[in-house]
C-alpha cells in the first residue's frame, strides 16, 4: 500500500517535471525547426506546418552573407575573456587583502564595494558612456570591457573565500619567512580555485548576456557583440522569421555547447557565487 502510494507520487512528479522540461526545450526546438524553413513555409496556415518540408540552409546562408558572425564571435569572446581576466586578477588581490589583512582604511574601502553591489547598474551608464566618448574609445573592445574592469561582486566573493581559509597555512608561511605578496601568490591563491571558476562562470554568463551597454558604446558593424547584433538584425529581417531564427541560433549555439560540456562548473559556479551574494 505504502510503496504503491509512493510510486504514484513519483510518477506524478515525473509527469510534472517532464511537462515543464518540455516547456523549457520547446522554444529552442521551434527556433531550430523554423530556421530550416522557407519564409513561405513559416507563415503557411492551412495546414500549419510544424516541420520544414526539407532541410534547407537558405536562411543561414542569407544571414551569414549579410553579417560577419566571425567578427561577432571574436568580439564576444574578447569581451567575455577580458572581463574574466580583469575580475580574477583584481578581485583576487582585493579579496585577499580584505579577507586576511587588517589595516587602517580597509573597512571604508570595503564599504565602496558594498555600495556598488546595491545600486542598479543603469545608474552608472550615462557617465560611463561620457567617459568613453571623452576617451574617443567608442567602437572598441576596450569600451565593451570598460564597466567590468573591476568587479565589486567578485571582490565580495573572493573576500568571503579568503576569509574562510585556515589560519595555520598563513602562519607557516610567515615562519618560513615569506612576505605578504609571496604568501598571497604561492600559498593562498592556489587554494581558491573553485571560487575562481565560480567567478569566471558568473562573469562570463552576465557579460555574454549584456545588451544595453554594448548597444550604446559600439554601433559600427565590426564592433558589435552577438547580443547587440541581434538587436540590429531584428530590425532588418523582421518580415522573415526563418532568418531571424537562424541568426538567433547562430548567436546562442556556442554558449549552449559550452554549457553542455561544462554543466557541472556552470551550475555549481552559479550556485556558489549566487548563494554568497
Amino acid at each position: 500500500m505504502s510503496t504503491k502510494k509512493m510510486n504514484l507520487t513519483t510518477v506524478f512528479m515525473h509527469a510534472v517535471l517532464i511537462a515543464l522540461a518540455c516547456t523549457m526545450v520547446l522554444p529552442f526546438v521551434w527556433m531550430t525547426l523554423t530556421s530550416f524553413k522557407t519564409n513561405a513555409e513559416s507563415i503557411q496556415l492551412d495546414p500549419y506546418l510544424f516541420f520544414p518540408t526539407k532541410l534547407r540552409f537558405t536562411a543561414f546562408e542569407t544571414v551569414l552573407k549579410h553579417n560577419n558572425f566571425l567578427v561577432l564571435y571574436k568580439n564576444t569572446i574578447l569581451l567575455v575573456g577580458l572581463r574574466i581576466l580583469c575580475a580574477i586578477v583584481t578581485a583576487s588581490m582585493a579579496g585577499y587583502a580584505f579577507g586576511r589583512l587588517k589595516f587602517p582604511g580597509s573597512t571604508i574601502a570595503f564599504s565602496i564595494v558594498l555600495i556598488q553591489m546595491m545600486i542598479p547598474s543603469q545608474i552608472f551608464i550615462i557617465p560611463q558612456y561620457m567617459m568613453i566618448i571623452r576617451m574617443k574609445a567608442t567602437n572598441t573592445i576596450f569600451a565593451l570591457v570598460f564597466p567590468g574592469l573591476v568587479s565589486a561582486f567578485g571582490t565580495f566573493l573572493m573576500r568571503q573565500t579568503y576569509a574562510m581559509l585556515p589560519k595555520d597555512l598563513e602562519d607557516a608561511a610567515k615562519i618560513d619567512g615569506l612576505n605578504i605578496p609571496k604568501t598571497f601568490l604561492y600559498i593562498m591563491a592556489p587554494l581558491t580555485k573553485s571560487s575562481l571558476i565560480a567567478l569566471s562562470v558568473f562573469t562570463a554568463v552576465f557579460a555574454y548576456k549584456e545588451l544595453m551597454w554594448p548597444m550604446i558604446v559600439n554601433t559600427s558593424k565590426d564592433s558589435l557583440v552577438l547580443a547587440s547584433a541581434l538587436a540590429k538584425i531584428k530590425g532588418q529581417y523582421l518580415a522573415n522569421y526563418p532568418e531571424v531564427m537562424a541568426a538567433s541560433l547562430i548567436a546562442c549555439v556556442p554558449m549552449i555547447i559550452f554549457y553542455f560540456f561544462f554543466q557541472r562548473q556552470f551550475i555549481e559556479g552559479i550556485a556558489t557565487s549566487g548563494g554568497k551574494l
Partner: protein
Amino acid sequence: MRNNSLRSKTAGQTFFWGWVLILPTVVGLMVLNIVPLITTIYQSLHKTGDFGRGYIFIGLKNYEKLFSDKLVRQSIINTFKYTIIQVPFSVFIALVLAVMLNRENMRGRSAYRTIFFLPMVVAPAAIAMIWRWLLNTEFGLINNLFNIRIGWLTDPRFGIYSVAIIGIWSDIGYNMILFLAGLQEVPRDYYEAAELDGANVIQKFASVTVPLISPVLFFVIVTRMIAAMQVFDTIFMMMERANPALAKTQSLVYRFYQASFIVKEIGYGSAIVIVLLLFILAITAVQLIAQKRWVHYS
C-alpha cells in the same frame, strides 16, 4: 622594545601591501561607480544639452516633469506589475521543483537540472526573438497550436503579462539551482520527524522546508525583485516603437533608455534612473525589516 618595533614593522608592511592589493579595485570602483553615481544625481538636477554641454540648474524640475509624464507614470505601474507577477511565480515554481528534485533517490535529477537551467546560458536578446516568434498573433506556434488569436505582444491588455511569462520561464532554473543548494543542507531527520507526526506533503513543505531554507528564500526574493525592477531586454527586443501595446508594457528602464540615448535628454534620463534607485532601495529596506518576522537563521 625590540618586539614592539618588529610589530610596527609588520603593521607597516600589512598597511602597505593591503593598500597595494586593493588599489586597482578601489580606484576602479571610484572612477566607474562612485563618481558616476554622484554625476548622475548632479545631472538629474540640471537641464542638459547634447551629452554634457550646457548644464542649467533647474532643481527638481526633472522630477516634477517625470511624475506628470504619462508615459513614465504608466511605466512605473508596468514595472511594478511585472515584478509582482514575475517574482512570486518564478520563486514558487522553482521552489516546488527543487523540493521534488531533492527527494531521496529521485531519478534523472541532473538531467532535469541541466534542462531547467538552459535559459540561463542564452542571451535574453535571443530568448526574446524566439518568444516573439512563438507568440506571433497570426503565425505563432502558440496561437496555432491552441487555435486562438490572442495578440500576446500587440494587445495592450496582454503585453506586460507576456513579458512576465517569459521572465518567469527564464528565471525558474536559476532560482531552482539556488534552492537545491540550500535544500541539500537541510538534514533529512527533520522530514522523518514530521512524517512520524503524520504531516502530509503540504504540511511538510510549509512547516519544515520553508522555515529551514528561509535565508535562501529571502535572498532569492530580494535579488529577483531588484532584477525584475530593471527589466529591459525582453521589452526592447520584442516591441517596436509603433507597437500599440508598448505604452502599457514599457518599463522604467525602457523609458530611461529612450530618454537618455534616443531623445538624448540625459538630465531627464538621470532623474528617471534615480527614481528607479529609490524604488529599489525602498523595496529592499521593507524586505529587510519584514524578514525579521519570517526568516530563521540557525
